[in-house]
Each structure stands twice: as structure tokens, then as C-alpha cells.
């Protein structure tokens, strides 16, 4: 038996990326704008999503996909209470959504007439950064109590996003959060990144974010 080298040169996550492209095509065919919402656990993703839905609801028809590691419907129930379509994807303990899971979840969510779909990823700053979903916008909800060193500790997450929300700004007086240090880390990783400091709880800063998103979606729909 002679050993033979077989050249491969294939990206390890190529299969995921291909399904992500299919997801993107599905969204585009329905003229649906898809947002991948990532964050650490407890950053306030769900509250942020609820307030975003409220802010956009007169203008757009929206739906939500909830990625959760456990089969609890706490988040999905809150969306349902608003009367909006919601699909829960239970990752079965996996630390992230991937394109294949999303593709399966989309089978249960009719996209006809849905202008914007918000995809709430699993709370984690490492794994979701590696798996493309096919979304048009990759968004991170950071929050001040997590600490100002997070860009330095999770560079891949901060490098791969299109927009950054800094949530829980109302807690700044009570914690040690050096905004300049935080933003310096962000600037190294993702120069010029669009950033919105908000408090989803009090509503502070949310209208700037909503108006910006409105414009981005309008521009996208003209394409």
C-alpha cells in the first residue's frame, strides 16, 4: 500500500456557508430583510428585540426566530404576546444557530408578507461568530455590565458585525465601565462600526437605532 496525498483545499465551514447562501436567496425572494441578533446571555437581547418590534410595528410586518439551547418558550411567548409570528429553534444544547438549523426553522415560518425577520441567536460571544446564517445584517447587543474589556476578549465577534448596540446605558452610574476603552477596542477590530448606545428598558437611544434601521431597510428594498 502506497500512501498518496490528495489535495483538498476546502473550507471547513463551506457546507454551512452554502446553506447560508440558500437562506439569503429565500429571504431575498420574499423581499424579507433578515437580522442576526447576537449577544452574551443576559445582555438584553429579548427586551431589545421587543422594543425594536414595537418601534417598527406600524411601518413593517415582522417575525421573529428564537434560537434557544433548551426547549423553554419564555422568549417565544413574549413575542407571541405581541401577536407576531414566531418560530423557536431548539439547538439541543448547541452553542449557536447554524445555517442548517435556520433553514429548517424557516420551513415553519411563512415569509410571504414579512418585511423584517429578527433572528435571536443563542447567547454566546464565540460560536455564533463562526457560523453565517444568510442574514443581511449581523448585529451584536453588548451591555455595559459585561465590562469594557469584551471587544478585547471576543475579537471575532466584534470583527464580524455590521452594527453594535451598547445596551443598559442606564446602568452606567452604578458600574465601572470605561466607554473610551471599550470603543477603542471596537475601533481596532471594526473601524467605523455603526454603534448605538441605548437602554432597551428605559427607551433611551432606541429611536436613533429604529430610524437608522428604517433607513437601511428602505435602501435595501430599493435594490
Amino acid at each position, binding site marked *: *500500500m*502506497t*500512501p*498518496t*496525498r*490528495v*489535495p*483538498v*483545499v*476546502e*473550507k*471547513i*465551514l*463551506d*457546507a*454551512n456557508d452554502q446553506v447560508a447562501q440558500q437562506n439569503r436567496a429565500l429571504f431575498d425572494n420574499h423581499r424579507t430583510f433578515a437580522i442576526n441578533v447576537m449577544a452574551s446571555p443576559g445582555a438584553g437581547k429579548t427586551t431589545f428585540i421587543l422594543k425594536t418590534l414595537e418601534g417598527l410595528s406600524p411601518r413593517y410586518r415582522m417575525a421573529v426566530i428564537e434560537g434557544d439551547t433548551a426547549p423553554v418558550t419564555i422568549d417565544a411567548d413574549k413575542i407571541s404576546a405581541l401577536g407576531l409570528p414566531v418560530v423557536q429553534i431548539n439547538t439541543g444544547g*448547541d*452553542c*449557536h444557530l*447554524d445555517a442548517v438549523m435556520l433553514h429548517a426553522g424557516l420551513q415553519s415560518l411563512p415569509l410571504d408578507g414579512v418585511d423584517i425577520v429578527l433572528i435571536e441567536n443563542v447567547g*454566546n460571544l*464565540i*460560536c455564533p*461568530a*463562526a*457560523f453565517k446564517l444568510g442574514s443581511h445584517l449581523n448585529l451584536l447587543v453588548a451591555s455595559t455590565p459585561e465590562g469594557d474589556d469584551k*471587544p*478585547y476578549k471576543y*475579537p*471575532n465577534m466584534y*470583527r464580524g458585525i455590521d452594527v453594535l448596540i451598547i445596551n443598559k446605558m442606564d446602568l452606567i452610574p452604578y458600574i465601572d465601565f470605561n466607554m473610551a476603552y471599550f470603543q*477603542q*477596542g471596537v*475601533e*481596532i*477590530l471594526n*473601524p467605523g462600526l455603526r454603534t448605538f448606545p441605548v437602554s432597551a428598558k428605559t427607551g433611551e437611544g432606541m429611536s436613533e437605532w429604529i430610524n437608522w434601521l428604517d433607513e437601511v431597510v428602505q435602501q435595501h428594498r430599493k435594490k
Partner: protein
Amino acid sequence: MHELAVTESVLEIALRHAGQVNADRVTDIYLVIGRLSSIVDDSVQFYWNIIAENTLCQNANLHFKRVPARLRCVDCQLEFEVQDSLSPCPQCGGYHINVIGGEEFYVESIIVEKEGATV
């Protein structure tokens, strides 16, 4: 953390390429992984020993080729390498830095054997 999904993907790629050349066995797999890819080699190896069992890839050795993170300063155009933490440009101290290498994440090649004949 997501190493299981990654390892499954490596196995799928290796088995598909081994099948294309009618190999009987895969002995080695060469992976190229950039410093900026958050992958833990030990973790991949751990899952590999489990999922490769009873496949053509059973007992195949994984080789990890780590590629350093290469950066270019936007302000002074200096190209430099970093190992771990973020740092400003060593020449001008600037913070406007582009990543030009270190995100590699692919299967480079595999070594296969075929009973009785060279593939």
C-alpha cells in the same frame, strides 16, 4: 465550544475526497487554521477520536498548521504579526488596523491508502 460541528465537517470533507479516489483508508489529515479562528486543537482531536471511529478515517492523524495573524496598519502601512492579544501598530501606535491573514480555516490535503495499488 463549536468544535463538534467543526470536526463533523472535517470528517465529511475527508470522507468525500477519500471516496472520490476510491481510497480504503485515510491515514493523515492536514488542517490549516488561522490564529484568529477560535478553534481549540485538543477539542477537535477529542471529538475526532469519537466520530471517526468505524469510518475510513479511523485512527487518521490530524495535523494542525497554525497560521499567524497578519495585520496591516492603515495609517503607516506597516505589516506585522500578532500572536494573541490586540495591540496597536508597533511602528506608529495607530489603532486603524486591517486583518490580512489568520482567518484561514480549511482542509489542505489528506493522505490515503488503497489496498494493493497506488491511488
